[in-house]
């Protein structure tokens, strides 16, 4: 019995001659937040899709709760408890909070062949769940389009957890958000981890990742540059690894500026 809830060992994925991923290894314990950092084109999207069961890895193995797992479809990944929240969130702005929360998995009541969508129960659960993370949904039948970006992100994460995710895979959850909204989402991610979930947080924003992450895996051109515990690596070191050193000077100037803004807030 290992300590790890889920292990992705030496995962490789090829598209024809292109090596999209090579020997990427990630191991997560319960309650751990691992940040997967990488610049554009580093292979983050391919890795997410491999974790979510969209792509089958060409090499390597996935071990979940000490059992070797093969995903044939995204549904298999969902069924064992790997919940992926994509960047587009899979939310429909015109539909209500409740209808989005239960989209595709609506609770039903009534007799066979005449089953109805149990709207009251769904409304109650959706409002409760959002309430638990401090988002007061006054009216669960209000359209998701009226919510802020951060609230939408929290709704999508909350939905994944409600439907049994043990491992949360979050694709750039803070990329489109302002500082305030981003911190709201990050707070929720920490809370989810504290309740025993393992979280893989994919981002290119070290400033968002560093405060919440327990460990960091850096991806560069399809290869893992290694996994580091927080105590072993500084924010600056992570940044230079991500950027691959080339644009470091330019970045540094920019980051000093960003830090200044951060501190101001």
């Amino acid at each position, binding site marked *: 019995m290992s300590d790890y809830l889920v292990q992705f060992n030496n995962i490789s994925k090829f598209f024809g001659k292109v090596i999209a991923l090579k020997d990427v290894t990630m191991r997560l314990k319960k309650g751990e937040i691992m940040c997967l950092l990488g610049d554009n084109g580093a292979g983050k999207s391919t890795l997410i899709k491999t974790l979510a069961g969209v792509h089958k890895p060409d090499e390597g193995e996935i071990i979940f709760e000490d059992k070797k797992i093969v995903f044939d479809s995204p549904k298999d990944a969902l069924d064992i408890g790997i919940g992926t929240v994509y960047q587009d969130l*899979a939310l429909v702005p015109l539909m209500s909070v409740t209808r989005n929360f239960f989209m595709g998995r609506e609770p039903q009541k009534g007799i066979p062949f005449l089953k109805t969508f149990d709207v009251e129960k769904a409304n109650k659960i959706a409002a409760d769940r959002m*309430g638990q993370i401090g988002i007061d949904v*006054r009216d669960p039948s209000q359209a998701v389009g009226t919510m*802020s970006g951060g609230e939408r992100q929290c709704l999508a994460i909350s939905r994944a957890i409600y439907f049994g995710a043990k491992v949360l895979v979050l694709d750039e959850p803070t990329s489109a958000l302002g500082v305030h909204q981003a911190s709201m989402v990050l707070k929720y991610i920490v809370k989810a981890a504290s309740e025993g979930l393992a979280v893989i947080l994919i981002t290119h924003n070290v400033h968002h990742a560093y405060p919440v992450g327990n460990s960091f895996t850096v991806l560069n051109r399809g290869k893992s540059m290694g996994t580091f515990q927080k105590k072993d690596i500084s924010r600056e070191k992570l940044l230079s690894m991500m950027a691959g050193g080339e644009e470091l000077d330019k970045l540094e100037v920019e980051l000093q500026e960003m830090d200044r803004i951060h501190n101001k807030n």
Partner: protein
Amino acid sequence: MSLKSKSISSKSSLNEDERLKKISPLRVLLNRPELGALGGSILVFIFFGIVAGDTGMFSAYGMLNFLDVSANLGIIAIAAAMLMIGGEFDLSIGSMIGFAGICIAIPAIYWGWPLWMSIVFAFAMAVLVGYFNGIMVVKTGLPSFIVTLAMLFILRGLTLAITRLITGRTQVPGLRVLIEDDPLAWLFATDTFKWLFTWLGSLKLIELRTDGTPLATGIPPSVIWFIALTLFATWILMKTRYGNWIFASGGDKVGATNVGVPVGRVKISLFIGTAVASTIFACIQVLDAGSADTMRGTLKELEAIAAAVVGGCLLTGGYGSAIGAAFGAIIFGTVSMGIFYTDVDTDWFKVFLGAMMLIAVVFNNYIRKKVTESK
């Protein structure tokens, strides 16, 4: 974690009820897609009440007349609305009406099939056509506008070619004698609540013919179908899992697929729905007229879409209602009949139809912005 205590607020659930009450009924109503069509219907009734109140338009006979026209349009408008909410169009509705008509008439008249069997055959063909439309759109990813436009021509052409080939004409008369004693045809050809009208007639509350029978003999089958379909479609959309899937498929195809909604199956079933609704329309019309005509249903697809749009359906999908489409159909049906009771030339009806639709689209656009507006 220190964050935990802050983020959980038990207060919110306590406040919930009193907060809910703060939303005024007016606001709830404003958020409903059918609001525009409901208001429009009321305006239309007020208008004709003033202009044509004493002309017999609102006698039992006059009302059944415009309700019949509204109901026929409503039957296809509701199916078109559901498909539009699911994010697709069907331009082959009108051609399907003509095609279904001859699918009933030719086997019954020329092949000697019993009428019920011809009706079943027409519905089977409708399912096939709808399935084909759906599978083409889902598998090729082409816009349904193009796929069903092709179907519009194919079906109309088939209808003409087959009818002329078999009968040498473009019309197939002689169905009326077959309706009696048929186990299925009464569903599309019987006036209901006759006793009520006879009773009202005997009390001299409604107009009578010279022989003493009431002028309006009963509720036409179209109206019963219209009401039943409106209720059924509303129940599906608001109260079932499948209804939620329709909204999801039209609202965001990719997102819906990612959370496990069978988008392809939902869309195919909705295309079958419009073809079946066209066939119901055809059954009622063919059995009422006693004949099938190859040109039946021409342009009906556009009227159905117009009614759905006036009823609050967004052209982009994901939003709308069956009740709205029903009111949209009532507006068009009432105006198209009501105009005969006024001094206005009937040529102006199309102008009205177009103007109504434009106003509705602008209004819907505004509502959508309101609904999706970020805080």
